[in-house]
């Protein structure tokens, strides 16, 4: 069985995580889109810290019945990996969009300069 102190500490940490995430959304420093995974992480960790029998059962399945808190670490790590992977995809998308914006802006700037210089309208199709 998990030591009670471990369960209490893990439960407090999970609740803190959930509260901090909710407050960040409320203050508009975090968008719901990027908060959902964190909330799921917090709720899963909270359930596993409170539901001690469940943690023991899972530990039994994986052959670490002598030390169930290992499952808490494993699951927390798993979720952190998922969140990081998600961020990597978001980062890649932002990278791509940032490049498109820079290109679009540079092309528009050229177009504005040309319009200012000769006063005539664009000759080719724009966009």
């Amino acid at each position, binding site marked *: 069985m998990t030591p009670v102190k471990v369960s209490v500490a893990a439960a407090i940490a999970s609740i803190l995580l959930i509260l901090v995430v*909710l407050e960040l*959304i*409320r203050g508009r420093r975090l968008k*719901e*889109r990027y908060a*959902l995974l964190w909330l799921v992480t917090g709720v899963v960790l909270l359930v596993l810290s409170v539901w001690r029998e469940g943690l023991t059962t899972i530990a039994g399945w994986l052959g670490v019945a002598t030390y169930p808190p290992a499952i808490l670490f494993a699951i927390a790590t798993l979720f952190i990996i998922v969140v990081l992977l998600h961020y990597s995809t978001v980062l890649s998308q932002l990278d*791509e969009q940032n490049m498109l914006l820079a290109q679009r802006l540079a092309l528009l700037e050229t177009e504005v300069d040309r319009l200012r210089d000769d006063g005539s309208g664009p000759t080719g199709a724009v966009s």
Partner: protein
Amino acid sequence: MTPGRIVAIVPAYNEAGAIGGVVAAIRAANPRFDVVVVDDGSRDETSAIARAHGAAVVTLPYNIGIGGAVQTGFKYALERGYGMAVRLDGDGQHDPGELPKLLGPIERDEADIVTGSRFADGSGDYRPPLARRIGIIWFARIVSLLTRQRVTDTTSGFQALNRKGIALFAGDYPNDYPEVEATVLVFKHRLRLVEVPVTMRERETGSSSITFLRSIYYVLKVTLALFIAMVRKYAVPQEEVTGS
């Protein structure tokens, strides 16, 4: 700047098949309408076709999502000084013939935002697929509960707005499934929202931007956003009203 003129905001994503007809129908419905199509990074000829049919076109450099696209339209309306705006989808499901019904309460100054509802008393027979209907009812219940006002259709993008409504949405508009959260936003800013019954047509071309796999994610996300929206502080508070 544009007195007496009304801007019709039409967000469109890969709607080359429908957009021409939509623009033409709006312009034919009322000569006071200026149509602006916000092309949300389409890969087809949406922009060119809309322009050919006489719409002003704002082409986004890549797909930013429905909420961002619609908000681009509201910003355009605000910057161009329009006092009234209507919003229709680019797929042809909203009938421009219904627009006088939507504009009525705005012109009589009885509302700041009017939504065309498929489920209000007197609406046409609209039977969406079961999963979609459950989502629509779920959001209608929650929003009605939060705003203490009977709202029957929170996912309708068929709207008319006055200058106050345009300014609100130009400044703050959510992204995924934006209409649901926007309803709470309207309530929090104490703007007057009125629903009028409308009949919507079946989609002409294209497919709904919401696929089934993503819908559970959206329902979770939007539900969370709704409750957060209720406890959020707003930068542009309207005059305090006691009671309610």
